[in-house]
């Protein structure tokens, strides 16, 4: 790693932000997203900009590339090789943008045009900037696809984006960005939407490309682990300001600013207290299978059957937390929905000895009070046109219809206070809250009914690390106070370790390993479990080597 550190030379930056400020005009007055940051990127250097959501890290890049929303305004200066590019007319900017400075985005699903083949999408900027004909451009596209390590690049050239997996799409995006041999690659959270094992591959690819092509990379992320193994230097941003910057090793060894220290310490700590021995089994699933029939409608051809869940067994005891771990598509969320009877499934599901699958929707309704759920997306799981008070008390309307409005309101105040949300805000609407606050509201909605089992479907995945830590602590406290049992679905092993008594590792709809939490972490038996662990703990092991 030491030879990497020497390539950067911030004294003669290729890209320099000097006192860059970005503000947005909103109905509530101007919002300052970036408050005068100075960042220098040397030739062939990888610079990481780290910060949580809302720290302004992405907006600074958008401003540099002239991509701000129309109510945004940038001040200060951004220089590429000494030339001011801030406020350059689009025509001049395009000569730099895409050719000298390329950008890749977070969401590979939406950054590619679904109507064009991958090959054409990569060839287009090449033809635009280099005046090559179609055949030469295609040859170059093929070359690029092999460069970013897509298997069978000749076939992928003719594929449409939806035929590619998330990791392949991100590779294709990188290929597009590399098309004109840029000197600077801005990667805006390029791995956030990907599974951990894919994330590790993309990071490895980027650092490999950087070494081979000698370009500078500006790597924007909220994930400190990635920064540690990739970047030469780190800038830590908070609320639009750079609070600390320096060499990666220095930042990690002795963080100066309390915010950096907090970010570094934001891994959830502590372990869950185990449930009493011999606690009764509350919720039990035996051989649960779920199959989705795709296609085949009135005029469609034969249906394609997708086995999302294949003979899964699970048994949850009172006071216990079972962590369900796996990558996207492994069936872990399907398992949660099947247990809640939100999906039809085969096999038996017993709750306190009653077979849930034999119950009709109406018979199931009283039991729903005992079985609650918290979803991943704090923005999608609260109805935008209902007040927080109405959202939290909706379950009471169903299960305690005799309660008066005043009584319901009192319960809402209690539940909100329980999740540390100021109850005075209960007449506000979800969009006025941050992601973490929304997730607390979703938790309040689940616990107001005093359930016995709560299924937590990736409740922390959409949140910043520091907020994740708070939610984990909140969930653990609620479990102790109310004697809850959790099924905790997550792809994040660090959080599962802090929450769960036992872990089920899932892959392609099957349980590949089921063991007590510590055993999974100290002595993983299955190769897939080891792979997951290696990807998740990459930063720590590399740091140990350095």
């Amino acid at each position, binding site marked *: 790693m030491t030879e990497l550190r020497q390539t950067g030379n911030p004294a003669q930056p290729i890209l320099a932000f000097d006192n860059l400020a970005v503000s947005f005009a909103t109905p509530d007055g101007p919002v300052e997203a970036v408050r005068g940051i100075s960042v220098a990127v040397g030739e062939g250097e990888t610079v990481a900009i780290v910060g949580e959501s809302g720290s302004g890290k992405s907006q600074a890049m958008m401003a540099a590339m002239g991509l701000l929303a129309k109510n945004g305004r940038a001040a200060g200066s951004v220089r590429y090789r000494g030339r001011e590019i801030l406020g350059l007319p689009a025509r001049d900017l395009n000569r730099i943008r895409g050719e000298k400075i390329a950008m890749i985005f977070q969401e590979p699903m939406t950054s590619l045009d679904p109507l064009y083949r991958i090959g054409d999408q990569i060839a287009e900027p090449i033809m635009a900037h280099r005046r090559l004909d179609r055949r030469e451009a295609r040859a170059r596209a093929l070359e690029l696809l092999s460069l970013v390590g897509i298997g069978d690049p000749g076939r992928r050239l003719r594929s449409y984006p939806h035929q590619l997996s998330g990791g392949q799409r991100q590779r294709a995006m990188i290929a597009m960005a590399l098309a004109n041999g840029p000197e600077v690659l801005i990667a805006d959270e390029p791995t956030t939407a990907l599974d951990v094992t894919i994330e590790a591959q993309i990071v490895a690819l980027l650092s490999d490309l950087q070494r081979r092509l000698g370009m500078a990379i500006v790597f924007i992320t909220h994930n400190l682990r990635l920064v540690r193994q990739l970047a030469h230097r780190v800038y830590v941003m908070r609320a639009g300001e750079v609070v600390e910057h320096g060499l990666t090793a220095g930042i990690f060894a002795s963080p100066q600013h309390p915010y950096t220290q907090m970010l570094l310490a934001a891994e959830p700590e502590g372990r869950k207290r185990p449930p009493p021995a011999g606690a009764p089994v509350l919720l039990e699933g035996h051989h649960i299978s779920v199959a989705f029939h795709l296609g085949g409608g009135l005029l469609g051809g034969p249906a394609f059957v997708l086995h999302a869940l294949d003979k899964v067994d699970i048994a949850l005891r009172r006071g216990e937390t079972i962590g369900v771990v796996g990558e996207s598509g492994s069936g872990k969320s399907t398992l949660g929905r099947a247990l809640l009877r939100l999906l039809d499934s085969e096999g038996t599901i017993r709750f306190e000895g009653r077979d849930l699958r034999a119950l009709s929707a109406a018979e199931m309704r009283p039991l729903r009070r005992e079985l609650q*759920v918290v979803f991943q997306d704090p923005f999608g799981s609260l109805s935008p046109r209902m007040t927080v008070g109405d959202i939290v008390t909706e379950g009471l309307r169903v299960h305690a219809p005799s309660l008066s409005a005043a009584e319901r309101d009192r319960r809402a105040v209690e539940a909100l206070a329980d999740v540390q949300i100021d109850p005075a805000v209960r007449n506000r609407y979800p969009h006025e809250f941050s992601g973490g606050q929304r997730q607390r509201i*979703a938790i309040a909605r689940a616990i107001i009914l005093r359930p016995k089992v709560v299924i937590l479907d990736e409740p922390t995945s959409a949140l910043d690390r520091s907020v994740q830590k708070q939610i984990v602590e909140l969930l653990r406290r609620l479990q102790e106070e109310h004697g809850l049992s959790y099924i905790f679905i997550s792809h994040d092993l660090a959080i599962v370790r802090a929450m769960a008594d036992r872990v089920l590792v899932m892959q392609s709809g099957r349980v590949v390993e089921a063991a007590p939490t510590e055993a999974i972490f100290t002595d993983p038996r299955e190769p897939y479990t080891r792979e997951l662990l290696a990807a998740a703990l990459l930063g720590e092991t590399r740091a140990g080597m350095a």
Partner: protein
Amino acid sequence: MTDATVLVATSGRSLWSDAWRRLRRNRAAVASAVHLAVMTIACIVGPNLTGHPFTTIYEDYVRVPPSLAPYPQPDQIEPALVDTLKRARLELKSWRLDGDRIAIEATATRPIDDRVTRYLDRSSTFEEARVEARSSDGLAVTLSASVRRLLFLFGTDNTGRDLLTRTLIAGRVSLAIGLLAGLVAVVIGVLYGAISGFVGGRTDEVMMRIVDVLYSLPFIFLVIVLVVFFGRDFVLMFLAVGAVLWLDMARIVRGQTLSIKRQEYVEAARALGVTNAGILWRHVVPNTLGTVVIYMTLLVPQVIILESFLSYLGLGVQEPMTSWGVLIAQGAKNIPSANWLLIFPSLFLTTTLFALNFLGDGLRDALDPKDR
């Protein structure tokens, strides 16, 4: 927790109030809203203030051009006088305008009855006619009458009715049909679309195929059938137009519902044990309303145009009641001789349609979730 229960809840900004604030900053939308409000008020109270009932025919003023000065104009008095006296079999000797009253000397070949004044009273130019003096043989008479001063700001139509009053009355009909038929379409469409999309499966298939079948029926044919069976009726118009336009609304709402029902808040409600009706009412329908409001502002002009078209064909409102469509149809026939008959009603119609479209545009911007 007792101290928390007495907490005063602060009120929040709903998405609607946010949208309202955005809308207020959109000048075109605000101007359109003001225009629509003024138009509505004018159409409701206006006809009572113009001084002309919308059915009254002024024989002397057939197709007079719009004017800011009251009728009769000085050069119109004599022809009107000659005309009226001829009907009374009198011959005009001389006349003199004295303030508001006119003094007339007339002769006849036979003795003149006192009741000749009625001829003057019956005309639309004069009133309060009196016999002032008569000659001893009864063959000459001095009459006096006051001249009626009538204001026709928009001129008059082919039968001599005040166009301003009729345009405002027509506005009542057009706006009422637009609003009511729009409302009918929205209510049916939202319920139908939300149920179809939410229940899904075979129900959805059947319900949407019914919509497809209705789509394939020729609209005019449908209206003619309705008119034949139930006779011409104002209320029937609402029903006919609304019954056709809810189809679009149902499709739009169904599409919205399909995406809303996959939202996690709907799944969360299901997990809470909320009934389907509760989910539909509390979660699905409120979240479709943004789109519905926008579509409604585009639907209303469509209805107004449809009504105009039907009236033009003679299937809509009937004389002496009128609508903008009817007035425009009549005006179109008189372009060479009396273009004001076309200009004023079409000005009212087009500005209203413009305003509705601008307002719809502003609402779309204001309610666009991407701007949130």
